[in-house]
């Protein structure tokens, strides 16, 4: 069954076509193999033993009992773990976070790996892990802001300043006609991709072969090469399909490294699959925040100042501070702006990137506070946002590469029916007596680009090959990037062989920061352009070619042919050019990266507006989101179906942020109280309202050659704020602590 090549009808350009996902048939039949589905010959099973305490030391492990269990092959502990080339706590680059891979007996958070049991069967290894019966010396833990000291971090996110701004915020607040001074709390979130982290590792001498889900294979190669003292090119990673990433698979996590160490220890291939409850610890999470917002406005409703103070927690042993201020730097025009951070150390794993890191948590606080100020000014919240519309980036004063936010507001509002909204709260009740409210939130996310390379090839049979080590965690890289590749080579999709998902291909950069399509797409665009140019060069230098002497600028490619631009009756096929030259193929390579001249002089962001309707039961406090309309502008759309899906999926994460998700830690033990999918709530389909995403046209000739911004994360921003604001509009109650659960709406 040749299901990868489902025929698609192409009308001119592949870009912009609504193609279905190319690997869809593999996924619905179960033929797509995820990491844990692999089973090399002679493979053993490794099972993690994880700490039941959040801070202290492991004082005893009954290794003998575990090893005596039938089928247990070995037990890996700090005593016998393979020696590493450098210590896992060494910070070799800004993306090297400290790992817990059995370097010692110390415990730094609950669910930290403390041993690995390797068995002939999963059953034997699982039983072995139980038989270890660890004993601990536990110490007191801190997992709440109330319980420890605050400090000013050296940097937040990845190297961003902990204090930024301009103007005199205190004067702006002092002179304001209306002020809000409010505090918003956001909890820790865990990625909870449906696929738990898994690895199948096999050593072939000094060469390492792994199947593991990765959003950044090249970064993983670098990290593993450093730890094991081998060359990055001796590490071969296969990651063609990720069962969801959401940032959790951006950096290789400790348990994945332990799978590799276990394979080294026993000299056989090893599979290690994390159990759901073990994910609440060693793979990162969205850090908890407490955001103090002070805003002022003049009598006309114009902002006079924004002060955004963020208290956030990192782990006791490493630094990652949730960078919640980003949205405040970019959204609303204000003469005075200040964003500041304080940090705390909790006895948890290190918080890391979770879908829209910083933007998601910051957006709820900013959109909530802006709504409160609009209320204080007696203004419609959408009119208030328009009044304070930023024509240039508020923090830097730079012009935007493009910004179609006004169109997002207008089209979203029209579709939603915003004009009928009563100004005051608690004015709408539906036929069943449920309080009804409407809210708006502005969405924004930066248009990042990282570094990527790609390789393109045109073959003498007229087909093309494009290779790039890109990652598809569900967003659609297999399809959207192939559309860019086919267009770059001016070929139909079925003439293209497209390879991604393995580390031997050119580095595509990390699939994160909503930057993958822009970055990898740009590399593909340049590589395919280089291949076409090389082919044109051959033809133009060949006296027998109709293109002889045309000059580089005078040749265009279309449908597997090159033509003279000035006379399109003169042209020939790729196959003809290459056969006559006696060549099997011609190759081009290209890079993708941000244009420094643009990033220095312009601000690049995607924007959107989200409108929410909620209904609240006045007797029970039960909230339902009944309607969501989002309108987003993010540059060029490669595949509308997939872009819409990213928006819808993102908006549902926004619903989840507002109403469901919350990791609850036991303040006495530091253990997660709800570390499972029964109690850590993500929405089920019945929690999902009627939801609609409108794709707003936006042309951006500056951001990159293809005009692409990112779409993977923006949907969360704006949405949670819109819902919280709608809850106020329904009930008159401002809930400033996420998620808004029924018990916070007692009235």
């Amino acid at each position, binding site marked *: 069954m040749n299901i990868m090549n489902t025929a698609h009808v192409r009308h001119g350009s592949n870009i912009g076509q609504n193609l279905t996902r190319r690997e869809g048939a593999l996924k*619905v039949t*179960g033929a797509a193999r*995820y990491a844990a589905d692999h*089973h090399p010959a002679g493979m053993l099973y490794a099972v993690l033993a994880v700490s039941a305490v959040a801070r202290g030391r492991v004082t005893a492990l009954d290794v003998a009992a575990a090893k005596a269990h*039938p089928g247990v092959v070995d037990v890996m502990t700090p005593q016998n773990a393979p020696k590493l080339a450098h210590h896992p706590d060494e910070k070799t680059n800004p993306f090297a976070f400290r790992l817990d891979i059995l370097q010692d007996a110390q415990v730094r958070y609950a669910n930290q790996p403390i041993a690995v049991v390797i068995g002939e069967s999963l*059953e034997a290894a699982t039983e072995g892990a139980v038989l270890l019966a660890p004993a601990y010396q536990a110490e007191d833990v801190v997992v709440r802001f109330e319980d420890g000291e605050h400090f000013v971090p050296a940097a937040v996110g990845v190297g961003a300043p902990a204090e930024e701004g301009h103007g005199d915020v205190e004067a702006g607040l002092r002179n304001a006609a209306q002020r809000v001074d409010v505090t918003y709390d956001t909890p820790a979130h865990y990625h909870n991709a449906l696929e738990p982290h898994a690895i199948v590792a096999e050593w072939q001498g000094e060469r390492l072969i792994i199947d593991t889900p990765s959003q950044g294979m090249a970064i993983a190669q670098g990290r593993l090469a450093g730890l094991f003292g081998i060359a990055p090119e001796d590490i071969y990673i296969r990651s063609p399909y990720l069962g969801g990433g959401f940032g959790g698979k951006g950096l290789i996590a400790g348990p994945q490294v332990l799978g590799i160490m276990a394979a080294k220890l026993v000299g056989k291939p090893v599979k290690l699959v994390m159990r*759901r409850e073990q994910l609440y610890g060693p793979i990162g999470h969205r850090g908890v925040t407490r955001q103090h917002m002070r805003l002022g406005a003049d009598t006309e409703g114009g902002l006079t100042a924004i002060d955004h103070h963020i208290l956030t927690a990192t782990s006791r042993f490493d630094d990652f501070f949730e960078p919640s201020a980003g949205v405040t730097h970019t959204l609303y025009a204000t003469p005075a702006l200040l964003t500041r951070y304080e940090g705390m150390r909790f006895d948890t794993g290190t918080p890391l990137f979770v879908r829209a890191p910083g933007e998601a948590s910051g957006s709820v606080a900013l959109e909530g506070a802006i709504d409160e100020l609009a209320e204080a000014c007696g203004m419609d919240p959408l009119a208030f946002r328009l009044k304070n519309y930023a024509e240039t980036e508020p923090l830097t004063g730079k012009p935007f590469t493009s910004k179609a936010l006004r169109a997002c507001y207008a089209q979203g509002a029209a579709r939603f029916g915003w004009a009928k909204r009563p100004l005051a709260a608690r004015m709408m009740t539906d036929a069943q007596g449920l309080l009804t409210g409407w809210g708006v939130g502005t969405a924004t996310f930066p248009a990042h680009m990282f570094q990527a390379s790609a390789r393109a090839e045109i073959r003498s049979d007229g087909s093309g090959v494009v290779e790039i080590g890109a990652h598809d965690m569900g967003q659609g890289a297999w399809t959207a990037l192939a559309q860019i590749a086919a267009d770059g080579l001016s070929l139909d999709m079925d003439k293209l062989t497209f390879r991604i998902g393995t580390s031997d291909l050119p580095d595509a950069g990390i699939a994160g920061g909503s930057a993958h399509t822009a970055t990898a797409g740009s590399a593909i665009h340049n590589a395919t352009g280089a291949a076409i140019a090389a082919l044109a060069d051959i033809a133009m230098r060949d006296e027998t070619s109709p293109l002889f002497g045309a000059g580089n600028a005078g040749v265009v490619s279309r449908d597997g042919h090159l033509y003279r631009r000035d006379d399109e009756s003169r042209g020939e096929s790729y196959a003809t050019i290459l056969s006559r030259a006696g060549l099997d193929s011609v190759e081009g390579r290209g890079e993708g990266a941000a244009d420094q001249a643009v990033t220095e002089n312009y601000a690049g962001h995607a924007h959107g507006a989200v409108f929410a309707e909620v209904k609240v039961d006045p007797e*029970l406090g039960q909230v339902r989101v009944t309607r969501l309309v989002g309108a987003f502008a993010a540059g060029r759309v490669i595949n509308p179906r997939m872009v819409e899906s990213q928006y819808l999926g993102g908006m549902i994460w926004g619903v989840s942020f507002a109403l469901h998700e919350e990791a609850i830690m036991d303040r006495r033990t530091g253990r997660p109280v709800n570390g499972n999918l029964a109690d850590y709530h993500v929405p089920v*389909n019945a929690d999902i309202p009627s939801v609609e995403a409108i794709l707003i046209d936006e042309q951006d000739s500056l951001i990159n050659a293809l005009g692409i911004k990112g779409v993977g994360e923006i949907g969360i921003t704006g949405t949670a704020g819109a819902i919280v604001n709608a809850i106020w509009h329904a009930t008159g109650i401002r809930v400033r602590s996420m998620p808004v659960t029924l*018990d916070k709406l007692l009235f």
Partner: protein
Amino acid sequence: MRALNMHIRAVLLTESDMNEIHFSLNGAMRQVSSLGPVVTLLDHLRLAERLTATKEGCAEGDCGACTVAIGQLDEDGQIAFRAVNSCLMLTHELDGKLVVTTEALAKAPSLHQVQELMVERHASQCGFCTPGFVMSLFAYEQSPATRPALHEMLAGNLCRCTGYRPIIDAAHDIAARPQSLLPAHWAASVAALPDACINAAAPADLDELDRALHNTPSAKLLAGGTDLGVAIAKYGADPGPLISLRNLAALREVKLSEDALMIGAAASYSTLLPFLERLFPAFAAMVRRIGSLQIRNVASMGGNLCNASPIGDSAPCLIALDAILTLRSIHGVREVQAGDFFAGYRKTILREGEYLWRIRIPLLAPAQSFHTYKLAKRYEQDISTVSAAFRLTRDNDRLIDVRAAFGGMAATPVRARAIEAALVGGRHEPAALLSAIDEDFTPLSDFRGSADYRRQASCGILQKLLAQQEQSLSVEDVWQL
């Protein structure tokens, strides 16, 4: 596999010396020892069969990535399918059944219509939850006569990428299409299996069960296995000796008599739901929010009661409906009121060697009505913060009798006598209702809700109940936002 202990025996062999069970896997016969270690169907598929389409996302029946379709031949020789969580299903329980996984649906070169629509609607993104959704949709597509609402059918499958809408779009398309034809060899493969009742290491009738439990009073009874499955699959608990109830049709019977509904303790929620829909729609509304379809397809009301959860959503209904439980052992039978069945937190009054046989629910008199409420943070698949059930008896417009029972307000589901008195006595203002609530309950605070919220929300429930009496709104109207 997650049973951890190699020495765990799945089934307490009673009076049969046969120790093999047979089932059809995608049309091919499989034979496994019924006396081996406990193995979940998911582990059997992924580890023994190396059929890896079926995924493990949580190993406790929350995410549905492991969903497969289980088929049984009905009287007409047709296969009736239901979706189940393979992570909770013990392989031994498959004796005589057909298991279908995603791998078996497509017939090259074309996809099954469910698969095709999942692709067409962009309902598969990362793809990890997809095989589970495909199997839920397949079981749905194959059961045109008994299709639940779409959101109920999909409640047991979590998706973190799509936001569900594309999946619901695909489900709508499937609902509009004719049922697909099954490969002929599937039914033949099931018909060819050895007779389950003869060749099974499980009691064949209640007398045999009485003796088995008498001989091994510590044995646990395995009905749907959804609680035991979690204990085994997630916590690696050694369940000790087990007695499978899979061959006891007498424990699964649901019968309607002139004045009562009789429910066999091991009847699955899905089996009894059509009866509840007709007789006690509000009870049915509550049951539809118990677990997910995959869970309700195997889980039983008897199992729910015997586990004596402080919340267990069916218990308040049974208490308010004055249900009678029949308990049975080798020494005979006895009857108790549903309200007297719970002895404390996760404790029942069952004696050694005794089990719950059946549940008798008296039908409503013409002057009676029945109402239920479930408060939970998430719409589907969530344990209640508070649940409540009320049977009201009216003389014209006057309430003359109220039976009220609450879950989530005490260590067990309990009857609320002070509340009953307040309702009948016409003390309907909030202060009076709150004081009755305080007389009946001292609720706990936990992460599902504070004590004060539980108190206030209970008052909200009572006000809502009273308002509905005035407006004659049905429960459904209020709940289905």
